[in-house]
């Protein structure tokens, strides 16, 4: 008797969990602040997966996070020597990202890419293309672009119009947010 009593509710809860449809339209907004390989990678994995789950997904690229959006072939950006120096020291482009640790003057990222390739893990460049294909909104931060001397033509195609914090925070209303 007692067995039936304890079992019955757990079964019904289980059934209810499986049958209850999602209550709200989940959204995800990621603030991509870091431009490093080991931060941009999970950012793009989460963004593409979120879109695959049917969530409205936005990535707001700000500060160092803008540099991965620079075209791979663009080398020196900016108008004044400070901005030019910045782009020299911190090369943009999704294929030129550095690791936050164990960078070893580029040997670290090269090994990481090699490991990813042999384990068939999609590269940040592939994930970025997938994110665009899946309709992830990629918003570059207007203010950082101004300050760092990055022009729209320095950045890759397929991005939303550059915007500010208000746009990002509006998208974040009622959304899960991550700051990476």
């Amino acid at each position, binding site marked *: 008797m007692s067995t039936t009593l304890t079992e019955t509710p757990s079964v019904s809860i289980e059934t209810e969990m499986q049958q209850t449809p*999602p209550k709200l339209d989940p959204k995800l907004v990621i603030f991509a602040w870091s431009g490093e390989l080991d931060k941009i990678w999970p950012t793009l994995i989460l963004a*593409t*997966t979120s879109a*695959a*789950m*049917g969530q409205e997904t936005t990535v707001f690229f700000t500060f160092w996070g803008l540099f991965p959006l620079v075209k791979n072939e663009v080398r020196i950006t900016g108008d004044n020597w400070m901005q030019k120096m910045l782009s020299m020291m911190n090369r943009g482009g999704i294929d030129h990202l550095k690791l936050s640790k164990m960078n070893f003057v580029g040997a670290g990222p090269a090994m990481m890419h090699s490991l990813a390739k042999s384990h068939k893990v999609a590269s940040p460049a592939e994930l970025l293309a*997938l994110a665009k294909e*899946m309709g992830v909104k990629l918003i570059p931060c207007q203010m950082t672009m101004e300050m760092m001397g990055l022009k729209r033509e320095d950045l890759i195609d397929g991005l939303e119009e550059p915007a500010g914090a208000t746009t990002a925070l509006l998208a974040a209303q009622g959304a899960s947010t991550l700051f990476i």
Partner: protein
Amino acid sequence: METVTITRRLDVKGFNCPIPIVKTAIQMKQMASGETIEVLATDPGSVPDFNAWIKTTGNALIEQTQDGGTYRFVLKKR
């Protein structure tokens, strides 16, 4: 018993997270409601991931089998 007619196939063997889910989602977008897709994957993480994915998308996982290191999923679009 209802026989399952598979209308699409997707081979993501060898690929790791998040590619099996992401590629499946892209395929599913082009499918009509009620259509089914067979997905072959080798990523062990795809087992919990597909089971989590159907909860958020409302699509149904109607078959899940394993043959050695290959996982076979049959999914039906909501």
